[in-house]
């Protein structure tokens, strides 16, 4: 029975895929049918996932479950088999992904229809892409080997390219602002850098182990082998090298430093896409890769875990600093996402596997919630702007305000918002709950429990990681409060904000549902050592997901070593610090932004304060993301262009009239030929001609006698040949049309004729 139910996992990615295929092939003209089909596909996947999840939860002894494999790819003598694999990590992902996806899909219906008079002409295509994306994510989760993992991972990469650049014709008046087309390209190329490492890691793993199925690569013998064999005869264990290469994929996909630059620009896509891809699901794929390959990461103690923890911790702090100075409502959330992903990576790096996975799940819910709410806010602002604009037009048609009004209006700018809590209450409350969860507001939000878990583990594992993460948590609370205050508190700062309407129910209902999860989900992972509540409620998440690491004793050994007895050393300091960071950050944020709401045109108080103490340059750097985009543009992008120019110059020369090397060589050869021909010309004119003339004179004497014969017979033959050739040429000239296809047709017919003739001759000879 259990097996039958768990075998349903096979079907989970199928329905979104069918919906993806059906929309462009059949239903694309009918918008309603298209989006219903896509939501239906993810709905079925959701139901199946719930069945699988609850089966897995109620029968934990059957895990990890692996289905029978089917042969799906044979290369040479190797046969790759494909099966589904369900372990606790898969199960909790199956709980999260379809649910969040479904909410986002439903929200998209409202988002794409609301606020504009004409519906997007690529409406059906949008839903088709979304569905393919869901296929990629679900396929990545359920199958049992790293090869399909990589394939589905790349499907998601393609979808993110297509979706970020969805409004590819959009251009902004400011030439420095990145357009959706460029943003899509940037995301694709930057993540490809990471994917290359991932692929190298897979190749190395396959070369050493001869398999990519989880069962084989996570077996005790394999891990033993990887831990005790040097890479290319060096001291580095293979496990370290492979883990680092795989981690390269994570750095790209989960936007960790130094490959974080793509994610903030990916906000150019439609907001549901930002929520789906860049907050809830795709970026967590990178973290999931580490979760999945955790046995390899912990097969041997080595510097790689320090690198993982270091990159995660640094990213968490670095991007939360940048988030403080962002004015774009989605920009803040983008950097917040990078920062929270850094949290997860840091947790995994110090061996806190369960805490990292827990934060992955809770973060997906509240960050999707925040993104969708901000999308609702943006829609409200756009709508309000149109409304105010029309109003204005009617009132003072003659006034010179018109030119002023024609300026481009940025609906994402928080400086232009304010006071939206009254206008959009059904957006405000979910946003508030999501924001509190993100800041880790104590006890009742999910973010608190998962963050607290990470901090507690970090405290016992590494003081540096712990303190940095605490500072990052405080900053997170601060910028979240800033965002809430700037957007929702105080008085409207523009006409647009004054007229912003509430969004339609198909947008606000998913918000409410996600808000419920953003709060309650934390209660499944309350640590046992938590005062008062801890002993009362069992830490279900840890018991369930923690059982995944039965794969190797190494994993336990290393994880245990890294976080020396997480339960024994239940000091209350991390809890206190976590509370202080969250509440302190929120309080300071309220004092700065909430007590005296920003006036229209007023400078950000933090910026003003920093300018006062000669730190304006630092704020400027934060606002410009510490100039990393600029740096990459100058080095990598311009470097490539420079290289291309170099080759071009090598070939043709940079300016007209000047020659490059290749051109120069060709010309040199030409000059040399010219020289040679001049010499021979001179030789010809002076030596050969003289001889020829001499011979000519002699010949002339002879030929006078033969004149008659020549004129009649020889001339006749020569002219005859000429006439025949000329006539022949005229006859076959029409086939020389200059059209390449005619030539090809002729050649094909000739070959056919030759082949026929060939076989005919063979036939004749054999008889």
């Amino acid at each position, binding site marked *: 029975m259990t097996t039958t139910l768990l075998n349903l996992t096979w079907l989970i990615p199928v329905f979104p895929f069918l919906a993806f295929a059906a929309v462009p092939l059949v239903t694309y003209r009918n918008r309603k049918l298209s989006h219903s089909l896509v939501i239906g596909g993810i709905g079925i996947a959701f139901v199946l996932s719930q069945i699988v999840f609850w089966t897995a939860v109620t029968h934990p002894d059957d895990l990890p479950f692996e289905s029978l494999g089917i042969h799906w790819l044979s290369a040479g003598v190797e046969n790759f088999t494909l099966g589904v694999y369900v372990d606790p990590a898969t199960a909790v992902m199956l709980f999260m992904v379809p649910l969040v996806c479904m909410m986002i899909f439903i929200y998209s219906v409202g988002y794409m229809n609301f606020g504009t008079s004409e519906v997007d002409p690529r409406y059906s295509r949008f839903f088709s892409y979304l569905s393919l994306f869901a296929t990629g994510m679900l396929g990545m989760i359920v199958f049992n080997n790293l090869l399909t993992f990589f394939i589905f991972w790349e499907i998601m990469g393609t979808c993110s390219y297509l979706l970020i650049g969805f409004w590819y014709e959009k251009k902004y008046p400011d030439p420095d602002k990145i357009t959706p087309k460029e943003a899509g390209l940037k995301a694709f190329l930057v993540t490809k850098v990471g994917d290359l490492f991932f692929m190298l890691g897979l190749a190395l793993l396959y070369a050493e182990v001869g398999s990519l199925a989880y069962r084989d690569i996570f077996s005790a013998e394999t891990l033993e082998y990887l831990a005790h064999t040097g890479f290319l005869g060096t001291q580095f264990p293979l496990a370290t090298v492979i883990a680092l290469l795989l981690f390269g994929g994570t750095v790209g996909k989960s936007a960790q430093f130094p490959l974080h630059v793509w994610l903030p620009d990916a906000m150019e896509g439609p907001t549901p896409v930002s929520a789906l891809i860049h907050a809830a699901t795709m970026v967590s794929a990178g973290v999931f890769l580490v979760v999945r390959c955790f046995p390899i990461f912990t097969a041997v103690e080595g510097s790689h875990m320090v690198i993982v923890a270091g990159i995660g911790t640094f990213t968490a702090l670095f991007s939360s600093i940048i988030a403080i100075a962002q004015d774009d409502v989605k920009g803040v959330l983008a950097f917040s996402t990078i920062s929270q992903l850094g949290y997860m990576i840091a947790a995994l790096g110090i061996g806190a596997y369960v805490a990292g996975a827990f934060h992955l799940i809770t973060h997906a819910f509240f960050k999707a919630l925040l993104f969708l709410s901000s999308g609702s806010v943006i829609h409200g602002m756009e709508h309000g702007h149109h409304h105010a604009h029309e109003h204005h037009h009617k009132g003072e048609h003659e006034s010179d305000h018109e030119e002023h009004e024609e300026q481009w209006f940025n609906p994402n700018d928080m400086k232009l918002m304010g006071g939206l809590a009254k206008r959009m209450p059904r957006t405000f409350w979910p946003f508030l709950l999501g924001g509190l969860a993100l800041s880790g507001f104590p006890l009742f939000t999910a973010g608190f429990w998962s963050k607290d878990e990470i901090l507690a583990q970090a405290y016992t594992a590494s003081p540096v990681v712990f303190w940095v993460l605490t500072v990052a948590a405080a900053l997170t609370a601060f910028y979240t409060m800033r965002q809430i205050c700037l957007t929702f508190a105080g008085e409207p700062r523009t006409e647009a904000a004054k007229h912003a309407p509430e969004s339609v129910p198909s947008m606000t209902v998913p918000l409410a549902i996600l808000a419920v999860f953003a709060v309650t989900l934390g209660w499944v992972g309350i640590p046992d050592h938590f005062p008062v509540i801890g002993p009362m409620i069992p830490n279900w998440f840890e018991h369930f997901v923690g059982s995944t690491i039965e794969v190797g004793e190494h994993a336990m050994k290393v994880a245990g070593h890294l976080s020396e007895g997480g339960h024994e050393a239940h000091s209350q300091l991390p809890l206190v610090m976590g509370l202080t960071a969250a509440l302190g950050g929120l309080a300071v944020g309220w004092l700065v932004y909430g007590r005296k709401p920003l006036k229209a045109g007023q400078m950000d108080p933090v910026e003003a304060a920093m300018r006062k103490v000669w730190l304006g340059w630092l704020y400027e750097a934060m606002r410009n993301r510490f100039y990393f985009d600029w740096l990459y543009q100058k080095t990598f992008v311009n470097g490539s262009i420079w290289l291309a120019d170099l080759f071009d110059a090598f070939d043709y020369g940079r300016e007209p009239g000047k020659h490059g090397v290749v051109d120069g060589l060709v010309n040199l050869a030409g000059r040399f030929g010219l020289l040679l021909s001049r010499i021979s010309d001179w030789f010809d004119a002076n030596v050969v001609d003289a001889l020829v003339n001499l011979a000519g004179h002699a010949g002339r004497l002879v030929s006078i006698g033969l004149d008659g014969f020549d004129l009649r017979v020889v001339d006749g033959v020569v002219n005859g040949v000429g006439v025949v050739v000329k006539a022949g040429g005229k006859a076959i000239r029409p086939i020389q049309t200059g059209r390449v296809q005619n030539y090809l*047709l002729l050649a094909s017919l000739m070959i056919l004729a030759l082949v026929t003739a060939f076989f005919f001759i063979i036939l004749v000879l054999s008889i």
Partner: protein
Amino acid sequence: MVPLEWCLILAAVLFCVGAYGVLSRRNAIAVLMAIELMLNAVNINLVAFWRYLEPGGATGQGFALFVYAVAAAEMAVGLALVIAIWRTHKTTVLEDIDLLKG
């Protein structure tokens, strides 16, 4: 099991579709696409013969991979040519490009 002949028939049909496309399409880009079809027909043959006659080795698959690489390179060159022709002649219709006319 699908018999070998079916694979070969499929490949032959695909090749003919491609050949027809190459000979009849007016647009250079469509012609390039049709060339891809012909190359893929070849690939089907290679892989099919490998699978049915030589399943132990990897020659057929290896050749198919080479064909992929060559096809990709050919596409790059082909599209570059189309762009070059577009720049000079403002057309991609093959009938208008008859510089070779005698």
